[in-house]
């Protein structure tokens, strides 16, 4: 287990390898389909983003509503591939990390390498467990999107696995090959 703190420096990112289990601490931002579309369109028009995401991590999540006594509801990752169209632009802008689940496109993988960024997987279907590592949650942009708004989350020891590292190694390709039986 490697403890890391956001925002991520290139030094930290370069040390991480696929298969490394990390515990993320600090601030991360949520965004999924609708928020990505808006961020992408702002960047394309050369306009400022509503949140400074330079050096930051985006978590692809649409949590359940928080019960009155809780910070957030169940909050596991959604499928990252749906954001692939928008991700290279965000990485070129300065985003450093992503947390989600599942394969990324070739374009995303290239943008990760080009920008010395990193892609983590959180466990899909473990939203109750993951919610316990989130200690603060507030909407910082696009409240009209409801569960798809951009939230600023503070996390303590949020567990994730490095699945695409800054060298372009991909655990979704390497991992299954080791266990394939012809």
């Amino acid at each position: 287990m490697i403890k890391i703190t956001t925002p991520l420096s290139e030094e930290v990112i370069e040390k991480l390898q696929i298969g490394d289990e990390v515990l993320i601490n600090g601030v991360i931002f949520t965004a999924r389909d609708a928020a990505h579309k808006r961020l992408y369109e702002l960047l394309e028009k050369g306009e400022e983003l509503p949140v400074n995401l330079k050096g930051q991590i985006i978590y692809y999540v649409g949590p359940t509503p928080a019960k009155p006594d809780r910070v957030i509801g169940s909050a596991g990752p959604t499928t990252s591939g749906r954001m692939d169209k928008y991700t290279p632009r965000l990485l070129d802008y300065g985003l450093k990390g992503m947390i989600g689940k599942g394969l990324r496109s070739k374009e995303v993988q290239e943008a990760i390498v080009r920008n010395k960024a990193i892609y983590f997987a959180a466990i899909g279907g473990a939203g109750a467990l993951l919610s316990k590592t989130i200690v603060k949650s507030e909407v910082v942009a696009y409240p009209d999107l409801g569960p798809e708004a951009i939230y600023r989350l503070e996390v303590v020891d949020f567990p994730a696995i490095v699945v695409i590292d800054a060298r372009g190694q991909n655990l979704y390709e390497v991992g299954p090959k080791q266990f394939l039986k012809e």
Partner: protein
Amino acid sequence: MRNLDVNEIKNAIKTLVVKANQELSTDILNALKVAANYEKSEVGKKILQRVIENAQIAKDEELPICQDTGTAVIFLEIGQDVHLVGGNLHEAINQGVREGYTEGYLRKSIVKDPLNRINTGDNTPAVVHIDIVPGDRVKITVAPKGGGSENMSQLKMLKPADGVEGVKQFVIDTVRQAGSNPCPPIIVGVGIGGTFEKAALLAKKALLREVGSQNPDPFYNSLEKELLEKINNLGIGPQGLGGRVTALAVHIETYPTHIASLPVAVNLNCHVARHETVIL
């Protein structure tokens, strides 16, 4: 003739959608425990242990097991000697879903139109399948279905000449192409026969069968076991990061079909396979 107030159906659905989303059923939990012991990948083993821990937290703290609390898929078997009174059945079903998803702090994941995509705000309408059966009881099964695994499901109209080998190939290809997206370890529901839409419904119903139960037909029982082994040989593993456990079970349902047809549907379910039943 027995009178049954649709309000009772509404109340049952309200309770079941919340329970199904918070409590993983014993068959799945047991299968996950066996899988965690068996898994050879270190990362895979840890993922399975965390998934089991997650189920416990969800139950103890009354939180959804997964944030994708799904489309409310509801199966009703209505006895032909039941007279439903007190209102419109479909409105009662949707009211149950509405109250359950709102009061139970579940996520609302339904958009009103598939292209205009405005959220309905209360997770209605449900997807409802009704069978009329003998008797004077009503059996309600609520099976919330997540989008990630539903998106990786497939249907194909094979040629009869493709036979059992064609079916095996299609099932395995579907799981391989799905890779990490349906949140493995998965349950694989296979519907063979009938017509285009019947095969899809059979595949969905196959997901309701208890994990670990045997198919009563010896031929299909052995086909299920063979497919499970072949799927686990793909190496996809927990969350698609490599391992021995890609699926927990393969369930096959069949129906007579046309002399020219061999429809096959493969409906995938993530490891958070939810279904709760009550009989009124």
